[in-house]
């Protein structure tokens, strides 16, 4: 297999897409399954360790994982020649794989938008990276938490749609 072989690029971007997707959804599930339910149980004096050290680092890998997943996913769909049919939900294609992939892609795109344009701007206010009053910080924390939960909800059908693109079930 040579570098000019499209199968090599397909393999390369498929691996990058899966790895960055694990990075993204792994962090999303860490926030929702581990960090947020545990925070109320952590003694007040220990909480800054999460907020000041772990959270900023986790948010870095979370948001850039989301970006890498979308970019490599779109390139992969283009390499496979399914980007147009999938984004139009496979209407007329009569293929469970293409329609399933289309739903997965649109859910992933909505989730990526949520990360970069709702969750991250809210977290910047909460962490004091952008200026905000106490009331604005409280509101941003609530909106960010709901957006994060929405993405956890959407991640379930999104992953199913992605698996359908292979198995068609």
């Amino acid at each position, binding site marked *: 297999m040579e570098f000019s072989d499209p199968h090599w690029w397909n393999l390369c971007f498929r691996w990058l897409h899966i790895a960055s997707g694990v990075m993204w959804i792994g962090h999303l599930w860490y926030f929702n399954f581990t960090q947020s339910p545990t925070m109320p149980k952590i003694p007040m004096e220990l909480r800054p360790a999460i907020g000041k050290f772990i959270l900023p680092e986790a948010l870095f890998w979370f948001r850039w994982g989301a970006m890498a997943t979308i970019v490599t996913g779109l390139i992969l769909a283009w390499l496979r020649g399914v980007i147009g049919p999938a984004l139009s939900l496979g209407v007329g294609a009569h293929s469970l794989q293409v329609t399933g992939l289309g*739903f997965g892609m649109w859910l992933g795109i909505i989730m990526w938008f949520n990360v970069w344009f709702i969750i991250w701007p809210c977290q910047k206010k909460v962490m004091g990276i952008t200026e905000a009053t106490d009331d604005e910080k409280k509101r941003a924390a609530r909106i960010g938490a*709901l957006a994060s939960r929405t993405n*956890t909800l959407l991640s*379930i059908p999104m992953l199913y749609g992605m698996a359908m693109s292979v198995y068609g079930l």
Partner: protein
Amino acid sequence: MKNPLDSLGQTIALGVALTVVMVILIHVIAGV
């Protein structure tokens, strides 16, 4: 009324329900 997204269990249940709806829609659109 409490927001279902405040509960992790209800969030997952909604995600599973949405998956079922999505799979039915996919079958309708794909027509197979």
